[in-house]
């Protein structure tokens, strides 16, 4: 940050975005200037109770960081709940990498607010700061590893055939 930064009266929103993204593992190692751009580009969306944020088959291409409210991920025609999201939790890091039809639907179960970055926005940021690409991929890899390690512990009793994502 340059010397003039301190003098500028930023909105609480921009500062808050900076802080929130700083806590996300996938952005944490981005250079400060890139973080600031990302925080500037990020958009806040509000959803009403029952709003579908994306549907199965959509290529939603966004990262959502839940700021307030409650979201749940639904699968199949039976709308089985896969997992739920509470404030400070996030989803969509993979969708920022490339086109991918969603296997689930995301629904807001109460009035919710999210902070969001789109694939296009991230791509443009990476264009400006190429070092971000590696750091983003590394963080995803770490996350994936952590996730599978956790799964391994959980399914110790059986169902191992579902594992092995990290050796794909």
């Amino acid at each position, binding site marked *: 940050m*340059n*010397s*003039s*930064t301190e*003098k*500028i*009266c*930023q*909105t*609480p*929103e*921009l500062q808050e975005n900076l802080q929130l993204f700083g806590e996300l593992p996938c952005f944490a190692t981005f250079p400060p200037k890139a973080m*600031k*751009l990302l925080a*500037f*580009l990020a*958009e*806040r*969306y*509000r*959803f*009403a109770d029952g*709003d579908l*944020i994306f*549907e199965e*088959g*959509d290529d939603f291409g966004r990262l959502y960081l839940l700021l307030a409210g409650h979201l749940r991920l639904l699968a199949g025609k039976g709308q089985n709940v896969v997992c739920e999201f509470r404030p400070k939790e996030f989803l969509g890091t993979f969708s920022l990498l490339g086109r991918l039809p969603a296997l689930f639907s995301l629904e807001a179960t109460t009035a919710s607010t999210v902070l969001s970055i789109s694939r*296009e*926005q991230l791509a*443009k940021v990476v*264009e*400006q700061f190429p070092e971000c690409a590696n750091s983003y991929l590394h963080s995803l890899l770490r996350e994936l590893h952590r996730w599978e390690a956790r799964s391994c512990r959980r399914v110790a009793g059986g169902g191992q055939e579902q594992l092995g994502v990290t050796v794909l």
Partner: protein
Amino acid sequence: MKRDPGTSPVTEKSLFHWAFRDNLKLQLILLSLILLIVGARVVPLEMQKRIINDAIALKNLDALFLYCLIYIIALTTASALKLAINYLQALIGERAMTVMRKELYEHILGLPLHFFRTTQPGMVVSSLMTELSAAGTFAGMAFAVPLTNILTLLAFTVYLLWLNPKLAATTLVIYPLVMLIIPQLQKRANQANKKRVDISRSTSSQIAESISGIHEIQVHGAYRQESDKFGQLAERLKKVRIRWSLFRFGIKTANNYFTGLGPFIVFLYGGYLVMHGQLALGAMVAFLSAQEKLFDPWKELIDFYQVYQDATVRYRRTMRSFTTTPDFTLELPAGDAPRLSGELAVHALTYDTTDGLRLLNGVSFSLQAGEHLAVVGFSGGGKSTLIQCIGKMFPYSGGSIQFDGRELSELGKMEIIRDIGYVSQSPFIFTGTVRENLLYARQALPAAPQAGGTEDLDRQILVLQQVGLFVDVMRFGLETPLEPEDAETTRRILAIRARLRQEFGKKLADCIEFYDWQSYHRTSTIAENIVFGSGGSGSGRDSGRPGPDNQLFRQFLGTTGLLLPLVELGLSLARQAVDVLAGLGGIELFFKNSPVPADQLERCEALTSRLPHGGGSDLPRQDQDFLLALALQFTPANHTMTRLDDELAADILTARLLFAKQAAGLLPGGFTPYGETALIPGQSILNNIFFGRIRPGMPSAQERINRAVMHTLVEEDYLEKIAAIGMESPVGTMGDRLSGGQRQKLAIARVLLKQPSIILMDEATSALDNKSQTRIQRLMTNRWRGKRTVIAVVHRLDSIDTFDKIAVMKAGKLVEYGSYQDLIGQRGMLHELIYGKNLPDA
């Protein structure tokens, strides 16, 4: 549309057919005028002779006056007649050409589809518009010109022979000579002309192809390749045109030269005769004059000959490219043919292309009326070909297709059009309104019902609802700018606005920021917050725009004490934009929510580097104005990087009140403050109804507002009015204002409106989103099953279980046919298509 089977097709007709068809009366009038003009042209010659021999030589003044009078009358009459003849010629020419164009165009529209696959539109355009015009010119001349000139020539020749047979015979020897040489030259010119027509056509096609593929050209940067292709053709065209011109002018020059020999012979031989007293001087003058006059009709005859040759070449070449005969006649069978029920039996169907490629190979299946068939399979399997054969878009090569036991090849095309609806994957939408496109298919039916009644509007609305286009049409209607309308419309819209606010105001508060005189409007710019209303003539944003350049407005800001705070705000905006965005290049995406547009960032950088600290009050006027402009466009709800100070917002509200009071002086052309009882002219009907701005960041806002507005419109009984306005909205050139999905929906709607008993769909829902696809699926299952036979080429396999039958096509063959359950049970091709090859047992 009806074609008389007795007459020859349009492309076989001779050039003369057009000159005389429907023009016989005009041609006869022309003939009588021509006879008159020939007489009127000979008279002055005789008068010349008499003036010299009888009047001047005998000093007879009365005779001089008389002959001169007759001379001038004949001359005037000849000129008037010439004008009339030219007019008639043009009239006949234009009439003939128009009929020719119309009939050829109708013929072209009916040509088989394979013709258009290999024909560039440019070739059709140049044929119809350019090449045929020569034929038209000829049609006007076809009768009159040769006749006038031959008669004139004969008259002069007879007159010359009468004057002096020996001299006449000598001078006339030239003409047979000319008639020997010119056809030789003309033959060469014709060859060049034929080549020219062909190359012109290739060039047109080349241009058309390049323009159609402009996307690829620009994407691949293939400018040079395309220029080269065009350049080569242009060069060839140049060469052949030069050759052609050379021969044409060669003919003219040869002709001029030989006819120029005429006077030479008269002087030489006539002079000799006069000297020997065998010819009077007056007679020689008359002879010379008549001899010279031979030249004009002769020249015109030669011109005519050239036009005739040119027109014939062009006409034949043009017609020859359209000699393909249409596959089907368009007539309805005599009497009332029974409507098709939808029962279909296909047996051993084959289809071969003109190149001998077999696209369908022994396809057999049958459907009861009202059954639904999904055609699936690998690409290139013949799915589209199958339904296009069933839709009689081209004739099948073998086997049979029977509707209600009647063979398709024996059913008239019009009967098929009446009872079969076809929706293609990328339907064509015509330039015009939504309604025109909606009615397009139905109006082509022989007994098209009259559009316009309320019952009809209800039916159109129903169809739009069924295909899911109604909401879009309503949006078009709602987005139509509000014209300064009558008091009734104003009253109705204000009533709708009041009702919406009353019933939905609270529920929509998080979607819409309503205009409220008492509070700062965060989704509007600062300028809009000060000028809180519409002013000037038309839209409030365009005229008398409040900005730094507007002196009165600047003064106003000064007196309200807003000027400096706004400049400071502008400086703050500039600093923050520089802080975040400087050095990143003008990427559009970065500036979407920036209060500083990309093209002004550089100036902001320069300005802030000169002024790293401190305020903007010391800046020169120019820089202050720049910052002021930035601040006036600042919109807190969108430009979230900067905060609007509460104090400044309050001052702006005070200024707003003052502005309304002084508006008459500040905004010439009238000012209407945003109030509950006034409309905003020039803004959309929707804006006038919800009277505010949509807050950003709520994806479902639009839909919720739409629902509330629809609900209110229904309650206020104004829905149909808006739908009618929406249906009148233009779809753009070839439908470019519609999305792919909207175009497909409109294409389905226009087929539905004519209520066919059989509907053929060729991936007709491929551009639709999930929700719209489900809607069409529901429509098919709930409303059409049992009533309309459906054959659909389907690309998405997750929804085919609702079809009665599934046909799996591969390489032109029907490899599987049966119900979904049966086929899945068989674990054959369909199973493989859906679940892939190597799936272990589930």
